[in-house]
């Protein structure tokens, strides 16, 4: 009965088509074009003809191997050790540059290594920077998505109360979102500087115990600094989404729970949270997508450095596509990113499915 009432191919397509058509023309079609480019050697600027190269771009990006290196042995057959007693190893470049005995490693670079007994296991890749950008992006998503989502919910609950002047606070919490990320990144560069405000405040709070750090110049802290700033900047955005979700929860449910004498936590657990289901999925997906698209902050604050510690996948597509004129390489990264995020969202969807 109900399904018959709501079944209409004509109305369905009619309502969806204008929006869907635009999305197809301006997002789907260009994306397929990018996919096509990833199979060619297309350059951004070139008089040379475009050639089909198959999956070369993919293998250039993704080739990764483990190289086992034995310690250096002296004439007597003993392992050469440095002052600390650690064995010395030959340089990786001896294996990866012009060495006919190891053609499979040619042109590869070290990403990281670990030790198995006295043998060094070195992970080498043709495109170490790409692998680092992948790692950084995943790290960023893993930190930012949960922290930002939770903080945003906390703020939304805090702000969703009737209090004189609450609108002022609501506006203030949203302000970092209002200002462009470009602007915010410029401002935070001043804060993070070695002689900058953050160090001075931490120094004052710790009575001089805290020694200033070069937040954006140190590979150990640069990504964390960008994560912190990104969370700060966009948390208001998700607060607004949570807020609109909170407002769809019927007040009668709250009245019922207060009549039953439920505690605040119980009210949240059994009334608020279930009512936020669809909002939660929305927030989770939006945060994840945005985190994967991380670019502007990195471009302005660190240009991906120091030592590639903050470069991201999208940053790499821009660096290569525009800066290095390698539009086919950049398109390849886009396709890989798409497939990666698609599989993650399918997993997310499976985990949050309605049971």
């Amino acid at each position, binding site marked *: 009965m109900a399904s018959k009432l709501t079944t209409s191919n004509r109305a369905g397509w009619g309502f969806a088509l204008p929006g869907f058509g635009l999305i197809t023309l301006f997002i789907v079609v260009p994306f397929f074009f990018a996919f096509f480019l990833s199979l060619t050697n297309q350059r951004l600027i*070139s008089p040379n003809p475009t050639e089909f190269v198959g999956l070369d771009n993919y293998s250039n990006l993704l080739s990764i191997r483990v190289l086992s290196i034995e310690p250096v042995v002296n004439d007597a057959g003993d392992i050469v050790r440095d002052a600390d007693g650690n064995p010395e190893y030959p340089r990786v*470049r001896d294996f990866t540059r012009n060495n006919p005995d190891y053609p499979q490693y040619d042109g590869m670079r070290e990403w990281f290594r670990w030790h198995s007994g006295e043998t060094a296991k070195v992970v080498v890749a043709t495109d*170490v920077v790409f692998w680092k950008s992948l790692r950084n992006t995943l790290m960023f998503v893993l930190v930012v998505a949960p922290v930002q989502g939770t903080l945003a919910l906390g703020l939304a609950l805090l702000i969703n109360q009737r209090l004189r002047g609450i609108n002022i606070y609501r506006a203030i919490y949203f302000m970092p979102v209002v200002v462009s990320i470009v602007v915010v990144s410029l401002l935070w560069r001043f804060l993070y500087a070695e002689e900058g405000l953050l160090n001075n405040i931490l120094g004052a709070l710790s009575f001089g115990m805290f020694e200033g750090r070069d937040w954006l*110049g140190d590979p150990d802290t640069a990504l964390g600094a960008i994560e912190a700033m990104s969370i700060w900047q966009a948390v208001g955005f998700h607060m607004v989404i949570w807020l609109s979700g909170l407002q769809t929860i019927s007040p009668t449910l709250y009245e019922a729970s207060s009549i039953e004498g439920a505690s605040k936590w119980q009210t949240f657990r059994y009334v608020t949270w279930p009512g936020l289901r669809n909002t939660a999925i929305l927030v989770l997906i939006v945060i994840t997508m945005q985190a994967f698209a991380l670019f502007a902050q990195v471009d302005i604050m660190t240009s991906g450095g120091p030592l590639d510690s903050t470069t991201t996948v999208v940053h790499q597509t821009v660096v290569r596509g525009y*800066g*290095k*004129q*390698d539009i086919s390489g950049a398109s390849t990264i886009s396709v890989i990113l798409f497939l990666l995020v698609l599989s993650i969202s399918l997993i997310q969807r499976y985990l949050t499915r309605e049971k």
Partner: protein
Amino acid sequence: MTNTKTLAGALLLTTSFGSMAMAQTELTMWYHGGGNEVESAIITQIVDDFNAGQADWMVTVESFPQGSYNDSVVAGALAGNLPCILDVDGPVMPNWAWAGYMQPLPISDAAIEGHLESTIGRWGGEVYSVGLWEAAVALYARQSTLDELGLRTPTLDSPWTLEEFMGALEAAKASGKYEYAFDPGMAWTGEWYPYAFSPFLQSFGGDIVDRSTYQTADGVLNGDAGLAFGAWWQSLFTEGYAPGTSQDPADRDTGFIDGKYAFSWNGNWAGVATLDGGVEDVVFLPAPDFGNGSVIGAGSWQFGASGTCAHPEGVAAFVEHALQDKYLAAFSDGIGLIPSTTEGAALTANYNAGGALEPFFGLSEAQALVRPVSPGYVVAAKVFEKALADIANGADVADTLDAAVDEIDADIERNGGYGH
């Protein structure tokens, strides 16, 4: 709504006036001076004089902010939407010429006679672009600093050697008066790195690519000279002589003036600001000689004709008009650039004999070396920039330079040798 109407009306008015102006052929010009009022005023003056002075051509200017100018041109070219007259940064010109974005400029030899060679853009044996000015880089210092530290004042004929330079940095560091001894300008990412720092590499005897063939960087970027340069470059940061890649952009602009840095590697464009900032005893020292002569970068913005332009002769007429000494002097006085002729320099306030910035003219004549003249430079420059940033941040010198060589070589190969 009224606003839109007025705006549309105003636009309509200007266009109809424009088309009324006789049978002049319209030539659009793209210029990188958006946001620079002085520069815009001068270019407008040149264009107005040109349009009024002859009956064949009518130039109209479209301004772009410099920071995004190249991206705009590439996008315009991809979309088949280039103007007739293009403004192009010297080292980028071969790339655009090779790609067909530009065509040879039919300018007479007489018009460019006596100009600094680095202001003339040549590719494949033909002139593609001509510039009205040059820029130069010098080692900024205070005379009082040199005196206090007991340092010899280097000259063009007798620049500091590597030992003297490092001795100067050590002395400045030991004095304890400076936050850092030397400010190379790491906060200025982008073209500054290859422009300002590749001359150090060249002074060591290396280069970004092998200029005999332009087919590889192997052996010049990662050869012995390259490795020596890399080790020296890294020591600037590990020994605490220079602020690294995370330098506060504000410090780059004011650090030397504020006395935070003893020496600063900076361009002539900062000269006036430094004098105005109260550093009256500033001296502009020539680049140190690291063994293979003193070198500074060369090649600034130039004018040329786009590949799709139907009237290159009109472009040439405009460029010849713009090359008059009075305009060279106007640009120099307005924005501090070095005029491309001695006659032009004589007309300026700062570069005439005895002028405050005169040393830069000498530097340009004596030490200037253009960046590799190759379509592949654009990509090699980005690779070089990243390598220098990585080495400054502690990456292994040999591995980093090897990787840079691999990337540059792979790019040259993918582009079929870039037409050399």
